[in-house]
């Protein structure tokens, strides 16, 4: 065909025939297990103000691994990346702009 439609530009005519290898799947599973153990261990120790940021950082790392490899985003067209990023960005808008109200309530004007 002389004229290409959008989906052809990104992934070709047939389904995206990328088959992720078994080693990758098991490797990611192992990583997720390690991070789960790590997050439980970190919560057993008192790290002061750092407990929550560490727990969140580990959770974000786990979620990123699942999104990129289990959900195949790493081999997906650019549009999928945009959709994923925009979703979390908009959630960020909700958090940032609303906390911009709550966290500045006690600031005095004078």
């Amino acid at each position, binding site marked *: 065909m002389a004229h290409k439609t959008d*989906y052809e530009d990104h992934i070709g005519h*047939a*389904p995206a025939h990328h088959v992720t290898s078994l080693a990758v799947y*098991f490797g990611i599973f192992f990583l997720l297990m390690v991070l789960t153990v790590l997050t439980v261990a970190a919560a057993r120790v008192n790290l002061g103000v750092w407990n929550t940021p560490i727990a969140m950082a580990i959770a974000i790392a786990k979620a990123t691994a699942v999104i990129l490899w289990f959900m195949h985003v790493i081999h997906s067209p650019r549009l999928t990346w945009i959709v994923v990023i925009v979703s979390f960005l*908009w959630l960020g808008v909700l958090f940032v702009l*609303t906390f911009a109200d709550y966290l500045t309530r006690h600031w005095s004007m004078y």
Partner: protein
Amino acid sequence: MPSNPTYYNLAHPGTTEGEEHAAHEHHHPFLQHHFEDLGQQHAASTLGMWLFLTTEILFFGAFFFGYALYRNMYPEAWRAGAHHQNWVLGTANTIVLIGSSLTMALAVWAAQTNRRKLTTLLLALTLILGTVFLGVKAYEYNEHIHEGFFPGSHYHNVVDSPALRPGVQLFMIFYFGMTGMHAVHMIIGAGLLLYFIRRAWRGDFGEEYYGPIEVMGLYWHFVDIVWIFLFPLLYLIH
């Protein structure tokens, strides 16, 4: 003049008709009539699922925002509430759910490589692990309700100091609300899995046509991700 005067023939004169028709000769049984080919159908369905997950991210996100706000307001009560959770069961359930994500991902692989029986088996394993997760969750709910932690008129907290009790009730609203919403998604996912087990056994899927399993996987992994965040936020507050 075209044979039917009320239609314009818009197909470009330069298009070679042979090409067009060759592509249409072997219609896959699951190719829907309004798509040109399976590639387009696959691309449309995965994009559709990702957009659905966008709505899910913002749906759960609003709940997480409420959680963050009240945790910021009542840190003591949140700590007390998390201490009423059984972190061993929570950890076990996390492992079970991540395991189910692995079997789901492997099921997609098995479908892509034309392994019909293995696909069915892996989907069934995913369903079993999901059910185990829900069973453990039900046990935990039962415990909490017996201890009087269910918010509302049945809330009967004798463990915490009176000053903390309203805050712990607020925590419990978020605990039951967020895990409950998550469990509803698990139940819907389990229902979908039953449907796909039947289709996989029937031999619908293979390297040409595995889009529906892929899309099912996206949903299942998303539910897993929600739990990845819920686990430290509800069970592991130091």
